[in-house]
């Protein structure tokens, strides 16, 4: 009993430090302050932010502003902002969905773990070829269990004016991909001579709370001709070299889906080649295929567990700081 007051003190101290609700968590930091600036908590008087102040945590509801000529650089979540006049009230951050695999991150910056389509590759990340075009999607899991997803509906629209050009419903989610000759012909017709053509893909399912949509680019006719010329040069090689060379060529032209298929073909012939595994991981990283990256990383670890190549792949695919 004589230690009871001490225990109460330790508990109260612990609570003062740690027992704060979520709203008291900082949502960002002050990066840089120039001139005379202030920070103000709701319902409290403003206090001056010392010039050159760094790493001061900021909270939702606080107000930042200039007293006289000033510049305040700060972060809110992953966004960095600078204000030189007026005020900025700090908003709360949105709750981020946990990624489907907590040890690997992949895919373009604008699309996340909740985006289901892996192929076609998004505009400004890569391009697609009508000849080999297909829709490929992630198989979602909750722990070990597969998430049951209702049939998919996929639309293709003009990217500029959203005019629908093709759609297909009741696509079985479990088949993991969908390919159609009609779509290939349609994309062929849309292909332009010297520039890429953008098409919007929209995917929906009764299991999704909203439609997922993004634009992708079709390779230009002239680039495809150059591609064919380069591909021809590798025709005479043996299978392993030919598939690998074709993989590199497709990768160079940003045709990542085609590159992945060629590297996979090489891996079937030579499953333990470390650099091939690494190239395939790099390609799937661009495509955002977390599941396949996980499988290939395990294979690479089994072959060269302490190699710089394996370390490089781990760094590439590890979740980036927020």
């Amino acid at each position, binding site marked *: 009993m004589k230690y009871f007051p001490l225990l109460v003190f330790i508990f109260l101290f612990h609570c003062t430090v740690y027992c704060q609700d*979520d*709203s008291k968590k900082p*949502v*960002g930091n002050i990066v840089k302050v120039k001139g005379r600036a202030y920070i103000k908590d709701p319902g409290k008087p403003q206090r001056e932010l010392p010039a050159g102040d760094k790493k001061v945590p900021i909270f*939702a*509801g606080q107000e930042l502003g200039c007293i006289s000529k000033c510049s305040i650089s700060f*972060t*809110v*979540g*992953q*966004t960095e*902002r600078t204000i030189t006049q007026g005020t*900025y*009230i700090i*908003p*709360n*951050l*949105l*709750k*981020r*969905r*946990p*990624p*489907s695999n907590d040890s690997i991150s992949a895919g373009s910056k604008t699309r996340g*773990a*909740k985006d289901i389509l892996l192929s076609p590759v998004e505009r400004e990340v890569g391009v697609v070829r009508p000849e080999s075009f297909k829709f490929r999607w992630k198989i*979602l899991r*909750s722990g070990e269990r597969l*998430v049951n*997803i209702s*049939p998919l*509906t996929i639309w293709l629209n003009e990217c500029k004016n*959203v005019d*629908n050009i093709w759609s297909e*419903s*009741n696509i079985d989610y479990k088949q993991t991909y969908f390919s159609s000759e009609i779509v290939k012909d349609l994309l062929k017709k849309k292909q332009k001579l010297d520039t890429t053509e953008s098409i919007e893909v929209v995917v*929906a*399912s*009764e*299991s*999704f*709370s*909203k*439609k997922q949509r993004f634009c992708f680019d079709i390779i230009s006719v002239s680039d495809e001709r150059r591609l064919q010329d380069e591909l021809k040069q590798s025709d005479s090689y043996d299978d392993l070299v030919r598939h690998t060379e074709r993989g590199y060529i497709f990768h160079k032209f940003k045709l990542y889906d085609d590159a992945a298929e060629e590297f996979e073909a090489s891996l079937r012939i030579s499953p333990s080649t470390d650099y091939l595994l690494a190239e395939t991981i790099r390609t799937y990283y661009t495509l955002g295929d977390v599941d396949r990256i996980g499988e290939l990383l395990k294979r690479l670890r089994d072959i060269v567990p302490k190699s710089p190549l394996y370390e490089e792949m781990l760094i590439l695919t590890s979740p980036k700081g927020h």
Partner: protein
Amino acid sequence: MNTKPIFQTFVFIGVGLLTTLILLGVKVVFEQTGPGQRLELYGYEMLQSYLPDFASRVQMPVIVLDIGKLEGGTDEHPTPRDKLQDILQALVKTNPKAIALDIDFSPKDEGGWQDDRDPDFFNTCLTIKEEQRIPIFLGVERSIESPPDAWLGLDKYKSLAVGMRFQFPNTNKVILWTRPPDSKEVIPSLSLALAQTYRETLPAPNYLLAPMLEEINAYPSRIENLDQSEFTVAKSLVNYSMLEAIESQSLATVSPTSIYEHKENFKDKLVVIGRIRETRDLIPVIGRDKDIPGVLLQASAVYSLVKFPLYEFTHKARISIDILLPVFLLIFVALIRYRNRKNNDYNWHLKQWIAFIAVIILVFVGGIILVREAGIIWFDFLIVIIGLLIHPLLEKKIGTILSR
């Protein structure tokens, strides 16, 4: 000898009941398949076409203000808040019942306001709400699964936030409310929030039929699970019959003067502000060839909840109807068979067919009357008709097999 006709009648009823149970099992399984669901949706589309599709401006409780002419409207270039503020101030002078904006005002995914002027705009909305007593609601989409204090960036704005989601890809239901994970608070849909300002309670179905119907408020909530994210939602059927009428009665203007000139159109109405033209927010609706602007879906959902809600039978009610219809028919045919037991020339098979055809017609007409008069969508009425058509044939087949 006297017991033989009775025995035959019991055998007939037994075979009929067995047929009914087999067909019921097949129907329950078929409803879960893709073709079964398509047939149900086709039935839904067909029944919707029998709903009244016109209401005058006076009768219509909702009006859409089309702001398609305003610049912006994308994540990169949000709709200018100062222009929205001018529009709101002009609308308030027309004394509308309530105003909702079909625009996503959530903070950015990566952090920060969608537009730096958002807090000022939200403060204006709160002031109008408190001083003018005109409820204003702002749509949120990205933040809907976040805690309430993040819906519109700060806790003080959460009373303005409303959801904008529909069930996809079959948009026949609106998400009435959403409860984010680890939260006790629910975010109402735009349509529910507006409807609750128009009338104290939502319309109720006929009290005789009510026990057989899914209630609007107590609609079965469901845990959505995608990428380990779980949130609870409730859904309600949407009546799209007035979609074209709502579009034709919409006003496309962004000028405060013009809004005030049309003040009679907004007085005591529920106003939904959004883009009909120049929008990427296009959503497929069953029974419509082209995708429809989201704001028209919201307005249709408002109309449904205020004026003409749609209901559907509970699962138990559907099973009961599936059993009772053939059982009544069986009893009827068994009775006429028994009454004419001494007449060897009596063609009871013909009478059975006539009875089944009569019931099929009754189901078809009943489906239309139910939707027109009581707003009840009998989703599986086409499957019931197919089942009734198959029933006599299957019953004959089973009878033949058993008699061997």
